[in-house]
């Protein structure tokens, strides 16, 4: 049966919301594929037309202004159709679900190159936290506003019977997971996430249009920029999971409500470029109007982008801090709710990550005994 318009539309933004049956149907139904394409085109048009950077607000000044208005007895307009306030239902299961994916998000984003929008600009040997909001992520996802993205990611997930098989499939040594805290589900699942090559080619016409939409103009371009291509080779990743099946998550399965732990290892992505260097292209893109100012300044502050992975940290909940994992530089991502955390580090050309519904000390303990 064809899924409803509402279900199809939501699947564009939140793919996990559609059940496996719907996804399988859409994948094989020409009519639904056409509907989806039409919806996607409409959504892209609307997004482009409504695109504008979020206003930079000074909350303290705004609060003073509000206090002044109240003191002056200024009348407020009444927003129409505003609903009366009512108690909110408890969402305990969503709490657990949100936290369970918290660590996974960062791990998958880093280790699989899922956030091609971030990684495609950098050749990483160091790690640094970039606090991002949902709006920032969407803005960076708009790389297609500045050029064409090709070659991926057509990423495949393959379950493997054991660590050795996963390691052989990924072409790296499988990490030997260290001391697990009591309560960790004992049965580990092994898998490999395939890699691939993602290429971004800069297009001045597209970038100019994006700059205009953002209310600015395209800065002067360095020589050789037009048509420059940046290629990122993303290596396969070994995934070892406890208490959660990443494949099931990716295909709409339920999120765990108990202890969950994921360990990932992948060679660092490699970046090559034609035309201009990766650094030049990154510098230029960060200067184009429309890139969130906060993200741009954070990325610039990191330093040489050819040496550093900017790890996106959700600004609302998580905090990032640098740590040492047996002498190797790492990044600890703590969920401020205290219910989940992750650590990412790089050693000998391999990026490792440990994430779970654990405390920061627990993930650090696992990381420091993993080799």
């Amino acid at each position, binding site marked *: 049966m064809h899924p409803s*318009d509402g279900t199809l539309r939501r699947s564009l933004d939140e793919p996990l919301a559609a059940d496996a049956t719907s996804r399988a149907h859409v994948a094989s139904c020409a009519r639904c594929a056409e509907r989806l394409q039409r919806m996607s085109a409409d959504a892209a048009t609307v997004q482009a037309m409504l695109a504008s950077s979020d206003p930079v607000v000074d909350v303290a000044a705004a609060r003073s202004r509000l206090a002044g208005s109240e003191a002056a007895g200024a009348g407020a307009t009444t927003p129409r159709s505003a609903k009366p306030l009512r108690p909110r239902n408890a969402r305990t299961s969503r709490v657990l679900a949100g936290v369970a994916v918290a660590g996974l998000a960062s791990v998958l*984003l880093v280790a699989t190159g899922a956030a091609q929008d971030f990684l495609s600009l950098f050749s990483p040997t160091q790690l640094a936290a970039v606090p991002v909001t949902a709006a920032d992520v969407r803005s960076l996802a708009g790389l297609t506003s500045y050029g064409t993205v090709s070659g991926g990611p*057509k990423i495949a997930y393959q379950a493997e019977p054991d660590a050795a098989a996963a390691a052989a499939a990924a072409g790296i040594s499988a990490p030997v997971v260290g001391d697990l805290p009591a309560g960790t589900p004992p049965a580990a699942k092994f898998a490999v996430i395939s890699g691939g090559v993602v290429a971004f080619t800069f297009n001045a016409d597209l970038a100019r249009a994006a700059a205009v939409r953002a209310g600015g103009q395209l800065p002067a371009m360095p020589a050789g920029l037009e048509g420059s291509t940046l290629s990122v080779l993303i290596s396969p990743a070994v995934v070892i999971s406890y208490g959660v099946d990443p494949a099931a998550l990716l295909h709409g399965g339920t999120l765990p409500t108990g202890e969950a732990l994921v360990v990932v290892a992948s060679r660092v992505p490699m970046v090559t470029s034609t035309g201009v260097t990766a650094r030049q292209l990154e510098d230029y893109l960060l200067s184009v109007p429309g890139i969130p100012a906060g993200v741009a300044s954070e990325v610039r502050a990191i330093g040489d982008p050819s040496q550093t992975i900017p790890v996106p940290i959700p600004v609302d909940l998580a905090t990032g801090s640098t740590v040492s994992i047996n002498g190797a530089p790492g990044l600890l991502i703590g969920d401020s709710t205290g219910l989940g955390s992750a650590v990412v580090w790089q050693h000998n050309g391999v990026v490792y990550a440990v994430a779970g519904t654990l405390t920061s000390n627990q993930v650090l303990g696992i990381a420091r005994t993993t080799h």
Partner: protein
Amino acid sequence: MVEFSAIPAFGRQLLTGISRPAEVGVRPTSFDRLFDEEYAKVAAIARRVLGDPDAAEDVAQEVFLDLHRRFGDSPGAQAVAWVRTAAAHAALNVIRGNRRRAVREERYATDSPPAYDPQAAVEAAETTRAVRAALARIPERHATILALRYSGLSYAEMASALGIGVNAVGTRLRRAEARFRKEVGDAPV
């Protein structure tokens, strides 16, 4: 081997999902905390409708003034949904008022548009005008959901703000996008 091509969307969904205090039970209850946590979002929603950051902040101020007038220092957990919807409605009120005023002014206008703007700025201004005009013409429920969606709310947050089921959000959003696109025409932007 199971293949999937939605990894970037998946990653973003996870990232946006964990960026939502709404989903982890962290809800502000005091007015001050709500103001600190939601003021920027309310201004962002208004900006999607108005295009202008200063006008958007004016709307944000109105919304919080009204909230405080109605509910005092302890507006309750549902206040987040309330201020977000109110931001969209208040901003739409502004452009509808502007549209009526613009029609009146156009009737008496004699001057040509300023000629000093570079072409790009002129095009941007035209796009901005077309977007505001379209938002003012389409049904309010459609304009509201577009403002909420494109200022970054998740489907769960939109469902909460609009008081509808999460499944109905997709349906309404789809209709709103189709209607909006029809209003602005199919010209590439």
